[in-house]
């Protein structure tokens, strides 16, 4: 997956706890268009796996808005 940028989801609106989930902008290699994905912190989720690989390459997840 061609990940363009990643940031954490906002803190939980009720509990205020930081989210481990992320919002990623991923470029569709077939259409060459960027798409936004809301991604849960689930190790079995393919998008989350791609984000973790992206982080292992030295990229950084930005803080939540």
């Amino acid at each position, binding site marked *: *997956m061609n990940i363009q940028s990643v940031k954490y*989801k*906002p803190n*939980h*609106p*009720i509990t205020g706890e930081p989210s481990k*989930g992320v919002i990623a902008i991923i470029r*569709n*290699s*077939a*259409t060459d268009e960027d*798409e*936004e*994905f*809301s*991604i*849960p912190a*689930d*190790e*079995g*989720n*393919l*998008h*989350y796996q791609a984000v973790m690989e992206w982080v292992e390459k030295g990229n950084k997840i930005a803080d939540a808005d």
Partner: protein
Amino acid sequence: MPLSKIQTVDNQVIPNLGRRNKIINGDFQVFQKGSGGATAADNAYAKTDRFKYFISGVTTTQDQQSFTHGQTDVPGEPTYFMRNTLASNSGSSNYSILAQHIEDVKTCAGQEVTLSFYAKSSVNGNKVAIEFNQSFGTGGSNRVTSAQTGDTAQLVTLTTSFARYTVTTTIDSIAGKTLGPSNTSFLELYMWMSGGSDYSRANGLGNQSGDFDFADIQLETGDVATPFERRPFHEQEHDCHRYYYKRPAQGTQEDDLILSSDYNNSTSNFWMEYYYPRKMRVRPSYSSASGWVTQTPQTINEGERHVAFQFTNGSAYLDRSTTFVLDANN
């Protein structure tokens, strides 16, 4: 009745036993992303549910083709076949593979299996290499490629007319392997359509181009290819929803699903729960949303059974034009 009687194909008992096919959407009835052609991307799904591509250096397009009613090339009145068009390629590292990930690596492990499918190509003599791989899931053993008899793919040679092809092999045992959660492991079917000389596992397939048409793909245990198990659309769609769900735009007022935000703990925190048609494989990603009324969700918490949307006002809702995608593909 002795077991041998119900295991015989000729007496027409086996063909009436259901759930033989390990492949989901083997007759390409379900394409939630919409009909029509699409350029396939590497490690991604195109338009047909459950079929994934692995591609390097080979422009590959997928198209949903319709059979003519009453045709006899492929029996049982299938509605569709899948056309994959591969552009010319010549690099030793080039490949184009049509794949399906069959959830849970225990599937068919240590068992003899038979893959059957109808196929034809625009180029007489084009081949398809059939390979099975095993992926052991999160925290599990390393992936095993060519996890089958002889540790190499099997080749079938196509003509320009539809014919049924069968490949029988034995899937590797998983004895001694460490398995991750079953919903993250899988048996993987690879149908190599092109594979340069770097890939000996493709059994000398080589670089190929042209149309590769497939219909009625079935994987079952045993050494016999039984007639294709044609399940109703709604059953196959239900199976596909475990991996991918697109909330479709509905057509009429009666199809409207109007949900007011159903919980609030302050004047700026309103929550709405949306239940999926079925429990998904893992917590899905949410994307491709459009048509929310008055406000798009400010926070999205995806679960395996439902998603919770948070809004800052209480007037947001879904109507017939609201669509979004939940992706739990493997």
